[in-house]
């Protein structure tokens, strides 16, 4: 394609985005749009799969059979989300093996929140309430994103996530209505998960390198700071109902704007975890890489068996 033709295609493409049309895998798209989407959707898929680990950590220790089954089902949903997000990424011309390689080599990122440890049962409640709550705010904003397979995956994922969030909040509510020991456990979990949850929305707008381009392509429809504010406004009253305190002495309600104003996020901690030095970065990667390596003989056997079956079928037919 000549330079002029590419420019022409780009104009047509930009006009489609402006008209809110969905871009489908077979449509022409600028290389940068393709790459940005591979990066973002796979990052999202990796987050689902790594996100199984902190919660999976409590399956064998869940306090009741009902909670155990619900937690198993939740972690299984996350595996399912991972599957269809990987499939959506594959439509952009990259294989699942390559995507895993990127994750395992540290080239691809996943949500930093999963680098924090889940150390008490209340953490399972807090993760559902806060982490899934923050994820939904991000993801609802993505249901209208311009790339069709991603937008459709988001619609489906959002439905399940909002169920998870209610489940997490219900765990917190049960703890807060329980014994003083249980309530203390809930407060402690809120103390540890609150700030990392705010960090889930990413750097401040002025420090976010991809925001402008992503807004233009409607890959993002709201900025990091807008979404973060929405999360705070939604979550503070929920903490009030639970009767536990958000660990932010600067938190105040501004009746004029109708928003809660909150204290400064520890951006040093944010960058430390993003750069791979959070409490569990190493453990999460070891778990993923370990599972993949331990599974290699199984995947090879499955391939070999399938080939043998195929040969048998052909031999029978001829």
């Amino acid at each position: 394609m000549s330079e002029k033709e590419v420019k022409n295609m780009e104009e047509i493409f930009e006009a489609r985005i402006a008209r809110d049309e969905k871009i489908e895998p077979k449509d022409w798209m600028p290389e940068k749009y393709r790459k940005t989407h591979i990066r973002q959707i796979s990052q999202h898929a990796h987050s689902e799969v790594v996100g199984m680990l902190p919660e999976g950590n409590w399956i064998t220790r869940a306090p009741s059979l009902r909670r155990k089954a619900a937690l198993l089902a939740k972690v299984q949903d996350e595996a399912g989300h991972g599957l269809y997000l990987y499939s959506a990424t594959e439509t952009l011309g990259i294989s699942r093996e390559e995507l895993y390689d990127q994750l395992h080599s540290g080239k691809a990122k996943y949500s930093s929140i999963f680098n924090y440890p889940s150390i008490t049962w209340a953490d399972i409640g807090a993760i559902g309430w806060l982490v899934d709550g923050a994820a939904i705010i991000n993801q609802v904003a993505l249901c209208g994103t311009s790339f069709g397979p991603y937008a459709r995956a988001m619609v489906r994922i959002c439905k399940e996530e909002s169920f998870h969030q209610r489940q997490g909040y219900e765990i917190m509510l049960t703890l807060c209505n329980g014994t003083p020991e249980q309530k203390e456990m809930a407060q402690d979990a809120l103390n540890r998960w609150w700030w990392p949850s705010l960090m889930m929305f990413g750097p401040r707008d002025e420090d976010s390198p991809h925001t402008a381009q992503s807004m233009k392509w409607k890959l993002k429809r709201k900025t990091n700071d807008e979404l973060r504010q929405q999360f705070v406004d939604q979550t503070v009253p929920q903490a009030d109902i639970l009767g536990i305190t958000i660990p932010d002495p600067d938190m105040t309600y501004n009746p004029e704007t109708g928003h809660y104003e909150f204290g400064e996020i520890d951006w040093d901690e944010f960058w430390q975890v993003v750069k791979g030095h959070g409490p569990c970065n190493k453990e999460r990667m070891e778990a993923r890489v370990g599972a993949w390596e331990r599974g290699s003989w199984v995947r090879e056997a499955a391939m070999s068996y399938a080939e043998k079956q195929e040969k048998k079928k052909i031999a029978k037919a001829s």
Partner: protein
Amino acid sequence: MKNQDLYNYILGIADNSLILGQRLGELCGHGPNLETDIALTNIALDLFGQTRSYYQYAARIAGDGKTEDDVAMLRVERDYKNVLLVEQPNTHFGHVIARQYLFDVFHLLLMTELQNSKDETLAAVARKGIKEVSYHQRFSGDWLKRLGDGTEESRTKMQEAIDHFWPYTAELFDTTESDQKMIKSGIGVDVSLLKESYYKEVTETLEEATLDVPENPYFKKGGKQGIHTEHMGFLLTELQYMQRTYPNMSW
């Protein structure tokens, strides 16, 4: 307890599902790929679903305001009635599949017969569970064939796993005193009668998987009498952790 034998009989079935489900729960997020992770989690969810119906029933029989969780989580090791097979660890994926398949074949035969129990509740649980269990057997049987007839490495691993678990199979067909009373009253299934069908089915699948049927005549038993392997205590430590650390609370 008035119905001690029925209570024991229910636990004999329920504990197998609980302990195997617990083992599968350890794997969630650590499988060889996402698809097997999802499938094994499904099996665990089915087992926990069945086990909850049994324990709710057992709790009603026990009375004293006992709950399903009290029955499931607040017994000492000697009071768990599961077979030794299901408590064995997830050493590698071949072990997971061998343990699962060797249990599933038995489980399906048991559920098929249990549908005819004179006890309405047990018959209903069996009727509901039978579709699930036949899916489990299909899944584990397919993987047994894949790994047996896959690569050299996978066949070696799978044969080693089958040889390892074989000695645990005979116990499946033993009956306790309570079992015998329940069989007499038409509530329990006489599992000793399932032995022939079991080994026939297993032998056929092993042959299809190009694996050898073990000839080891020495079998291990004890689980049904509450005498477990050294692995069991650690499994229970995790299972019971919250209930033991924070007694008498709602979750």
